């Protein structure tokens, strides 16, 4: 058994070391895979704030991932075709600048999370799982049948968007951007977990009526957690779209929501780096098992079952044991 903080440091170190090593030996594809893992991890860290801290089992987080993706797709599409996003009532131009795209992605997914959260938090338990799933399906079918931005075909962006001072087309540069964002979000997550808000949210998950009895509104705490979670997933979506230089409705599919949830549970719900471990392991399995057999989903399924049945607390829990009591 080792302490969780050492494990977290080790995970992040490896996640950084592998692409650096890959750059040295000129294996750019390994960097691409690592970037994919980092972005998935980011989305999962987002979900973990709602799921691990707030106890909100959302089977619809693909909505925010997708909205982030489409924010990037739509802005970059208009920038590359030199058409305005809208001209009435005022002019909005497309853009290829990553920071601007991120802001738009986070704002729009945050707004969506606010709306969906407000409605969904009227329900609890299985109903909450199902209503978030239903919102996901709504967005999925909408994007498929709405022709303006490509419908099911999706949108291609031929060149990756720009970040001041870096050449985003160089794999290690783009990886660095994603990795730094992941570290910042993890830091934010750690701070939130220990903050007064995190304390209250954590209590709202375990015993909402106690939180009410001390004069706080548990649903408002959960709603904010849901919005923060959605904003992070949206940012991950924008990065994912930039990694692929492509967005499509599959980003909204319920399998995507399921996969984000798999990252979290595989790694360990409520653990700071659980989602990171989950995403990295998933991407590795996808790569290596996928190379072994066309039917690799069978093995993936079996592995997930084993984790659920025998490794409560996910992989992180398996390595470091149960959560320490703080202080």
């Amino acid at each position: 058994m080792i302490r969780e903080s050492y494990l977290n440091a080790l995970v992040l170190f490896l996640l950084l070391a592998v692409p650096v090593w890959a750059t040295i030996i000129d294996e750019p594809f390994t960097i691409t895979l690592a970037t994919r893992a980092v972005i998935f991890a980011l989305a999962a860290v987002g979900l973990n704030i709602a799921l691990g801290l707030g106890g909100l089992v959302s089977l619809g987080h693909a909505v925010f991932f997708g909205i982030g993706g489409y924010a990037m797709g739509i802005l970059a599409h208009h920038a590359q075709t030199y058409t305005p996003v809208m001209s009435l009532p005022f002019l909005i131009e497309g853009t290829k600048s990553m920071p601007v795209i991120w802001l738009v992605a986070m704002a729009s997914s945050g707004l969506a999370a606010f709306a969906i959260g407000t409605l969904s938090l009227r329900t609890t338990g299985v109903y909450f799982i199902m209503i978030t799933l239903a919102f996901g399906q709504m967005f999925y079918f909408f994007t498929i049948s709405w022709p303006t931005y490509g419908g099911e075909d999706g949108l291609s962006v031929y060149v990756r968007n720009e970040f001041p001072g870096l050449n985003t087309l160089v794999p290690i540069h783009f990886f660095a951007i994603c990795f730094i964002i992941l570290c910042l979000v993890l830091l934010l997550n750690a701070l939130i977990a220990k903050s007064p808000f995190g304390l209250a949210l954590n209590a709202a998950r375990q015993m909402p009526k106690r939180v009410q009895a001390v004069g706080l509104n548990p649903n408002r705490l959960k709603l904010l957690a849901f919005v923060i979670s959605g904003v992070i997933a949206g940012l991950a979506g924008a990065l994912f779209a930039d990694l692929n230089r492509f967005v499509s409705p599959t980003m909204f599919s319920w399998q995507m929501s399921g996969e984000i949830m798999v990252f979290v549970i595989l790694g360990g719900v409520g653990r700071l780096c659980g989602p990171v471990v989950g995403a990295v392991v998933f991407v590795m399995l996808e790569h290596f098992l996928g190379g072994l057999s066309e039917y690799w989903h069978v093995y993936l399924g079996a592995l997930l079952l084993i984790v659920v049945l025998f490794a409560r607390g996910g992989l992180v829990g398996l390595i470091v044991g149960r959560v320490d009591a703080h202080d």
Partner: protein
Amino acid sequence: MSIILIIEQVLNGLQFGVMLFLMAAGLTLIFGVMGLINLAHGSLYMIGAFAAAVIAGLTGSFILAIIAAMAAAAIVGALVEMVVIRKLYGSDHLDQVLATFALILIFSEGTRWAFGSFPLFLDIPNYLSGPVTLPGGIKYPLYRLILIGVGLFVAAGLGILISKTRIGIQIRAGENDREMIAALGVDISKLYTIIFALGAALAGLAGALVGAIQSVQVGMGEPVLILAFVVIVIGGIGSIKGALIGALLVGLTDTLGGIFLPELLKLFMDTSTAQTSGSALASMAIYILMGVVLIWRPTGLFGARA
């Protein structure tokens, strides 16, 4: 749009609804009694359809195929319950979601491993094919009428099973109070296996019946599964009556929405825009219905009040 067409569409909606009910009934029973959320219910639907296709291919008998579908789904269901599901009753919904998601992966790819990537052949028998003429001169496929009949028959049967029989009393007791059935001296794990197998058999039946007019292929279960979840959430989880009403609502909304929404929009916009946005709206209609129901009644139409 003629009255005949409207009646025909209502029948279509009903038929879709009762088939959804077969799926939803099992899901809602399993949730009501065992508190388990089972994403792998769609796999049992697929297993039913594949078993029916194989047996129909071997024997040529549709009746045997249907029986085989129910048996295969029930057996697989019982096995899954005993090997995996049983360990999940105490867990929270999160673990259940993940474990049954894993089961979907295993069943889907396993079936593809065994049967290949191409759809299987399963058709309705000659004596059930073709249309019949209903009063008012409506021509309607015989087989679809039979589906409506089978669905309503199963609904009635389940109603009687739950209200009148010994096992029904146990099921109701289990929904209300888990310790109570233990106190009644019922073997709980056996009861759970039976309920799971019953739900699975209904899913298998639906898979075979629907597979005969649709396509028998890997992945056929998941779209139906999601609709069935919408159904039980609208109806109220745990309620058979809710599942029936919810299924009919979803069936009618989906069928009629697809027809009438584009027609409605044509009143305001040009034909092709109306067609595109109408069908976009129609594909979201049932989810909008579900959202509205949950905002109005957060535990569904017939769900237990919190």
